[in-house]
């Protein structure tokens, strides 16, 4: 099984590079439209958000399908979300602002959608930094998990960043919002359901409803 997972990871690694390759080709061949830099910046942002949501869908998918091996793909997907977020941020800092730091600073302070985008990115950094096996060991599983719960607020802020950027038509950000709500809602629901189950299991047997067994003759 481990060998299959390794093969799968290699395939996935290449697949995740495809959007970046497409943008690279688009810049090279000038097929990104009239405003290629805007198309590139926004496209990279879309993919950062796509990978974030794909990463967040691993746990629900694993639970629904029972395929526990899915969990072993999660780190790579999360790191791709970070990689695309880095490219997205670089496109903004370089191609949009040309590293004019005073202008960038003003943008972050004055413009809510930039503030949100930057916040989401900064929250993503510790998650990427603690993604190695060594860091997991160092932090201990429990603490590591606590740190990585940052992904929930981070994803909400990222969707907000997209929503606030849009002028009037929020159809696309709304789709991201709905998908995120489902992914987080499932977790909440399962948490509630599991807690209830644990509670019921912890009760003394006499409180349990006795279901009479009818035997058929």
């Amino acid at each position, binding site marked *: 099984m481990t060998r299959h997972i390794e093969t799968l990871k290699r395939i996935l690694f290449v697949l995740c590079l495809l959007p970046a390759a497409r943008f690279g080709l688009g*810049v*090279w*061949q*000038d097929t990104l*439209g*009239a*405003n*290629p*830099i*805007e198309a590139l910046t926004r496209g990279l942002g879309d993919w950062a958000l796509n990978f974030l949501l794909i990463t967040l869908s691993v746990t629900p998918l694993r639970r629904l399908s029972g395929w526990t091996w899915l969990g072993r793909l999660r780190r790579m997907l999360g790191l791709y979300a970070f990689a695309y977020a880095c490219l997205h941020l670089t496109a903004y800092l370089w191609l949009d602002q*040309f590293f004019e730091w005073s*202008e960038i600073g*003003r*943008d972050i302070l*004055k*413009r*809510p*959608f930039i503030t949100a985008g930057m916040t989401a990115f900064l929250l993503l950094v510790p998650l990427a930094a603690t993604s190695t096996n060594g860091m997991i060991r160092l932090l201990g599983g429990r603490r590591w998990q606590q740190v990585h719960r940052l992904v929930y607020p981070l994803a909400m802020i990222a969707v907000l960043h997209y929503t*606030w*950027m*849009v*002028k*009037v*038509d929020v*159809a696309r950000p709304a789709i991201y919002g709905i998908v995120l709500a489902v992914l987080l809602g499932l977790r909440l629901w399962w948490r509630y359901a599991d807690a209830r189950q644990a509670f019921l299991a912890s009760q003394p047997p006499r409180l349990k409803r006795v279901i009479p067994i009818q035997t058929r003759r």
Partner: protein
Amino acid sequence: MRLAGAAVAGLALDARAAEKLAIQVRSAYSTEETPTPYRHVTGYNNFQEFGPYKEDPAELAHGLRTRPWSVIIDGLVQKPKTLAIEDILKLAPIEDRTYRLRCVEGWSMVVPWLGFPLSALLRQVEPLGNAKFVEFTSVTQPDVMPGVRRHTLPWPYREGLRLDEAMHPLTLACVGLYGEVLPNQNGAPFRLVVPWKYGFKSAKSIVRIRYTETEPLTTWNALQPDEYGFYANVNPDVSHPRWSQARERRLGEFFKRPTQLFNGYADQVGQLYAGLDLRKHY
């Protein structure tokens, strides 16, 4: 980046079947700057009636019915008038007016528009003494305009100018571009072009012009007054709440260029705003 080279190639590939429009007068108001390639001018548009994305108008505007077309001129006038587009086209010699266009979103182009001064059209009626503004109303054809069906904005699209702005020789009654009649996605068959203001002031596919005494309620201004003022003069020193207006990206260029006050038309229009606080009246 091979933007420039590819843009030229793209121009040659355009299969144009549009009706030609002869230029009768070369205008001194035209800029010598290189026009933005035809495919960008006609493929990267904000025309919210057809959708929120820049590619939507080029894709969907073919359904727009531009004939028969007439423009009502009414409001505070002696005698309201309805003009057929055929007559509007004959009102004045068609001039070539290559203008810079600066969008409030931070990009710009250079467009070789065709048209004549709007004043020639406005003079077709006699305004009353108390008329101070003009309001422009764009067409709504819900069956071919998905944006209108989805109520993305309060339709119809409305814009407005102060009367002296509307009468200014730079203000263009536009009926074409690149030597042909206006493509639908650019606001056929008749639109406004006000080159020193952000693009949204230049209403497309106009069906009604109304003289008013008070400042007309314009679409974007009514929707988000802190983001889109009534004047909307291009001004690098007054930022939009969501981005700076200090620089702009000219389509086809890699580096951003500084935005000019009144989009570079300060010499011609500056005196219109003498004494007006441009930070307050943005």
